[in-house]
């Protein structure tokens, strides 16, 4: 290939290169990537929120969904997450105490609602009456040792003074997703699931349910916390701010959660 002798000044030739660089820099001036661990029950709302967030901010968010217990154990053992959106308060608190979570970053991003639900659209009309009558084969709940929804289910039963009588009919899912599966496949007639699992567009989309009043159990507060590895990542801090903003809150409520 023949090299043409330079006919123009060096600056002239370099200009396109500089422009390209400039564009790259300007275009990505705040384009960062965040690695977030998210509780499984929050999967759907989180996906919706991230879509908007990425549009608005230009950042990229990578997520891992799982049971809070597993995510916690992974974080403790060095998983490269930069923030955790848990299903409870206990784990984020622990992380804070252990120095892995950034102090002051923890906040409640959603408050879960419990619903007594059945895949059968005619089954649940009067929730407490149904529970008292015992007219069901099994009651599916999340394992209270592992999931706050499970704890809340037990508290609700205790509030209704039905725990002892219903105990023989309990089946426990390892997490809220499995709990839901038991009911959805019909193997358990009814179960305590998260409202977000059965709500779409503001109402229960299939089956039948009784939304448990918030005063029957301790609130299912789902906390988020920034982890040590993410403290300098603007994508993370902006995401956390975004979660508390109007757009995100609307989505969260749409999926059946409450917010502070």
């Amino acid at each position: 290939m023949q090299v043409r002798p330079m006919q123009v000044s060096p600056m002239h030739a370099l200009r396109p290169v500089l422009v390209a660089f400039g564009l790259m820099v300007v275009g990505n001036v705040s384009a960062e990537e965040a690695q977030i661990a998210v509780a499984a029950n929050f999967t759907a709302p989180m996906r919706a929120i991230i879509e908007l967030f990425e549009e608005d901010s230009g950042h990229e968010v990578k997520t891992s969904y799982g049971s809070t217990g597993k995510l916690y154990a992974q974080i403790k053992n060095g998983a490269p997450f930069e923030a955790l959106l848990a299903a409870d308060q206990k784990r984020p608190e622990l992380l804070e105490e252990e120095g892995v979570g950034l102090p002051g970053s923890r906040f409640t991003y959603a408050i879960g609602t419990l619903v007594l639900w059945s895949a059968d659209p005619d089954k649940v009309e009067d929730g407490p009456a149904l529970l008292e009558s015992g007219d069901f084969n099994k009651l599916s709940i999340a394992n209270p040792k592992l999931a706050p929804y499970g704890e809340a289910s037990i508290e609700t039963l205790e509030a209704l003074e039905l725990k002892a009588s219903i105990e023989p009919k309990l089946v426990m899912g390892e997490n809220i997703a499995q709990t839901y599966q038991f009911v959805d496949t019909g193997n358990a007639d009814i179960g305590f699931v998260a409202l977000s699992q059965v709500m779409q567009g503001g109402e229960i989309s299939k089956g039948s349910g009784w939304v448990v009043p918030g005063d029957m159990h301790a609130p299912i507060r789902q906390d988020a916390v920034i982890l040590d590895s993410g403290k300098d990542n603007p994508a993370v801090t902006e995401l956390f701010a975004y979660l508390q903003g109007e757009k995100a809150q609307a989505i969260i409520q749409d999926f059946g959660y409450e917010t502070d």
Partner: protein
Amino acid sequence: MFLSDTDLEAIALTLRLAGVTTLILFALGTPIAWWLARTRSRWKGPVGAVVALPLVLPPSVLGFYLLVTLGPNGPVGAMTEALGIGLLPFTFWGLVVGSVFYSLPFMVQPVQNAFEAFGERPLEAAATLGASPLDRFFTVALPLALPGFVTAGILSFAHTVGEFGVVLMIGGNIPGLTRVASVQIYDYVEALEYGNAHRLAGVLLVFSFLVLLALYSWRPDRRRA
């Protein structure tokens, strides 16, 4: 007490599940292994593949399909309900059904290999000596295949003890009925009760190791002139 009462209950349940499953597998797996070893039908390949499926399927997949099939909307569930048995998920016998599927290849394959190993000749010899087909099976085939049966039994038992995915899907974690040791350990880990988890897991680990050690150390004299 090294282990809590619930732990001991979980272990007892696990052993019971493994024992019942293994016995059922002997009864169910032997004719299948025999047919696979001797048949020349074109169904040999497909049947063999179906038997081997649980080896490659993730247990959670198997468990999930069992949940749907055994449930009220599934074919088997409809049948059990019609027969008055009720539904199988969340029961001990539901776990047995799941475990039998899941450990089937561990029973069939060693036994099939054992049946194939001695070939046609001993059975032909037995026939010329007046033994009917059933007679030949019990007096020649079974004794010659015995090492295979032992291997199959031990493997099936140990495999069921370690089963987790299937139980998780259709068990429902009911103490004394479906809360087996593997699920219990998982719960401990999830609940951050690592001490309990270590203890119970340790017991299972030692047990499984001893079982396998027995299998691999015992070498029956396979050399026949």
